[in-house]
């Protein structure tokens, strides 16, 4: 045996064995945790996958294929105006950061070759919070209010953090490398308004298919709720027309899929999900046989699904096991959660911000974890604090950031993020809590 090489595997196996050996299967709390875990997974599978996550993957895929990243990066180059670059950096995460693995290289690129420290930090802070998948899932699972607060908070505070970083380290602005951020020639394939309509139709399908039942009868929200499948269908038709007119998809293919969806919807109106699935399968069949940008779109979307779904599945299982569904208790007693992050005290907000900053959240898993915490008594303010500090930072990515801009700047950045997240949570909690 080569112990030098094998000891890690041995430790892991022994650990797993010990865990299994002493597994408290009889314990009531353990059983409850397992039950909650499975119940939460089922709830996600029923409520969020088909109507929400799948269209969201297609939208994220479309963004990464059809939105020209070069045109955004132009505003973050070394020559760009400062005001513009801060503004663009704080919102461009929604377009540039669809995949968490692109955030750090982009951050390094903006810092080293582009607009500099301030905009780079603004981007790093807001990017993970406003990428399109994160906004959609946060709003869907945790409520529209928190989803919007997350996006708005991330954007506005990112500018403040960027400016502060720039002000603190004004003297050591580094000499810019000769190399500019790689900017290829932008090929204009189709006018902007066509792309915009195409995205709008997709987003409309997503929004209206998920329109929640309003609490009060009457009014605009209820009217939209009553007609939501008609509006969804109308948006889907628009989407199909866009595909035929501007993306060179054959009309009879789109028409065929539309027909199949319509038949499902009319024969089995009580199962709208079925028609939805038929539509998605049809879209996949049409796009999978092409090698142009439409085919690339499907590949990107599929890539997101493959990358994110397993992580999210694991995240939901763990969150359910530890924290339970809302109103139920998992393995961790609710009173611990309430004691640490309940209410809207400064301590609760600070604790949530610090914990979030060091904890590692895989893409989107912050959502089920937070859902569990809120269900166990976490206050709304601390929830936002965790959302703002969490995905932007983690111990592993602090190490990477440190290798890019050094220990001192990293420490200041982390401190600023924690402080800003705490303040944001406190304000939000005071208003909505």
């Amino acid at each position, binding site marked *: 045996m080569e112990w030098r090489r094998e000891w890690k595997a041995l430790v892991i196996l022994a650990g797993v064995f010990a865990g299994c050996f002493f597994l408290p299967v009889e314990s009531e709390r353990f059983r409850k945790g397992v039950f909650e875990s499975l119940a939460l997974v089922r709830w996600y599978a029923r409520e969020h996958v088909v109507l929400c996550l799948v269209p969201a993957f297609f939208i994220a895929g479309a963004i990464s294929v059809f939105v020209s990243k070069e045109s955004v990066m132009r505003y973050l180059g070394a020559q760009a105006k400062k005001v513009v670059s801060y503004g663009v950096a704080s919102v461009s995460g929604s377009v540039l950061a669809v*995949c968490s*693995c692109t955030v750090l290289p982009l951050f*390094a*690129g903006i810092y*080293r*070759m582009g607009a500099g420290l301030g905009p780079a930090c603004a981007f790093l802070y807001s990017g993970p919070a406003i990428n399109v998948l994160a906004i959609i899932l946060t709003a869907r699972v945790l409520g529209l209010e928190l989803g919007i607060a997350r996006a708005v908070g991330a954007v506005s505070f990112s500018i403040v953090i960027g400016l502060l970083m720039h002000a603190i380290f004004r003297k050591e602005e580094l000499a810019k490398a000769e190399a500019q951020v790689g900017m290829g020639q932008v090929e204009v394939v189709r006018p902007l308004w066509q792309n915009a309509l195409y995205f709008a139709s997709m987003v409309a399908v997503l929004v209206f298919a998920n329109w929640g039942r309003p609490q009060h009868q009457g009014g605009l929200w209820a009217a939209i709720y009553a007609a939501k499948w008609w509006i969804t269908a109308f948006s889907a038709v628009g989407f199909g027309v866009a595909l035929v007119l501007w993306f060179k998809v054959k009309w009879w293919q789109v028409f065929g899929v539309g027909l199949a969806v319509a038949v499902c919807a009319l024969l089995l109106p009580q199962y709208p999900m079925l028609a939805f699935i038929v539509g998605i399968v049809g879209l996949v069949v049409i796009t999978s046989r092409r090698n142009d940008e439409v085919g690339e779109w499907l590949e990107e979307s599929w890539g997101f699904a493959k990358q994110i779904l397993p992580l999210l599945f694991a995240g939901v299982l763990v969150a359910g096991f530890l924290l339970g569904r809302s109103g139920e208790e998992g393995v961790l007693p609710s009173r611990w959660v309430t004691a640490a992050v309940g209410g809207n005290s400064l301590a609760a907000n600070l604790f949530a911000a610090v914990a979030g900053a060091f904890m590692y959240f895989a893409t989107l898993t912050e959502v089920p974890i937070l859902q569990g915490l809120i269900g166990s008594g976490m206050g709304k303010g601390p929830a936002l604090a965790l959302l703002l500090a969490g995905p932007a930072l983690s111990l592993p990515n602090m190490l990477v950031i440190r290798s890019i801009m050094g220990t001192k700047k990293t420490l200041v950045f982390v401190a600023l993020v924690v402080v800003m997240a705490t303040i944001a949570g406190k304000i939000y909690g005071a208003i909505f809590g």
Partner: protein
Amino acid sequence: MREVKVLGMGCAKCEKLFENVKRAAEEAGVDIALEKVTDINRIMGFGVAMTPALVVDGEVKAAGRVLSVEQIKELLTKEG
């Protein structure tokens, strides 16, 4: 012998590009020295902000997207 580097910090797309390069070289019968660059400071050294990126003989050929096997074959067989 062509010197090929795949830049990326180990995300799924970077792996895909790496695989595609390997396959392209095999199918085209081109002899390559393939390297995976994961250190972010080295990646920046190429002037690339979007990963995955592909570098052939020291020249950045693509950034921010996964090239298909066909596209890479074309890059490899062209005279450098």
